[in-house]
């Protein structure tokens, strides 16, 4: 009774070890292949199956967008620093701090609008079906994150206050 059971257990363990080791090795190799790439636009080619000509256009659009994005990021960072200094040591929200908050929100929405314009431009440079998919995916990944947070807040709200209720 004991010997066959022991043999079966050893066989099962050996099989599991074989499966796990081949899984880990192939996964590591696969991940290492991807880690070598430094192209930030690689995902576009992988996900939307773009041709080289399309990718050249993507690189152009991306390169044109980056300085605008960097400038906006600098403005946001500067405004955040201003807000931080206005809030540091304060025990109440001053009019100056409120103004900085409004400015920051404005800058963020401008940045968001600029980002969406870039996404739309990129989507137009793709084949129509892929462009549509890209746009909805980017909206989900960028704007959708806020919606998810708001929905989480609504779900955990115990005060009866509901965001976005009808």
């Amino acid at each position, binding site marked *: 009774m004991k010997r066959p059971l022991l043999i079966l257990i050893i066989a099962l363990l050996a099989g599991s070890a074989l499966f796990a080791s*081949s899984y880990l090795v*192939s996964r*590591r190799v*696969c991940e290492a292949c991807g880690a070598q790439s430094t192209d930030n636009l*690689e995902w576009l080619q992988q996900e939307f199956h773009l041709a080289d000509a399309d990718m050249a256009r993507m690189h152009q659009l991306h390169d044109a967008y980056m300085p605008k994005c960097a400038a906006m990021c600098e403005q946001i960072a500067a405004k955040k620093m201003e807000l931080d200094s206005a809030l540091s040591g304060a025990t109440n929200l001053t009019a100056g701090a409120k103004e900085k908050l409004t400015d920051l929100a404005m800058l963020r929405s401008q940045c968001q609008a600029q980002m969406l314009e870039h996404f739309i431009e990129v989507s137009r440079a793709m084949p129509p079906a892929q462009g549509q998919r890209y746009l909805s995916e980017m909206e989900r990944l*960028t704007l959708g994150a806020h919606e998810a947070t708001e929905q989480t807040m609504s779900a955990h709200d115990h005060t009866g206050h509901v965001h976005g209720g009808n």
Partner: protein
Amino acid sequence: MKPENPNSDAALGALLRKARSTPSLPPRFQEGVWRRIEESEITAASPAVGWLEALTAWAVRPRFALAVAVMLICAGSLTGIRVGNQARQQDAQSRYLASVAPNSLR
């Protein structure tokens, strides 16, 4: 030739029986015999044990073991490749997203 003497044959027989050595049994022989009988009865009575033995005998056949090993390596590699590709895709997506959308806007 001497006539046969039945009395002497009987005496000889008795003498031979006496002379035959009876080897001493190993220690706890009887206990061992009973244990084996009990084990064989249990094995015969339990279908699970027979099934287990049959399965083990089937599993340790070299051809079957080799086929299973190859299958496990293939399945493990394919799963690893699939998961690795997903992770790579996810990484590439994160890199693209980080380059076009600042964290503060996500």
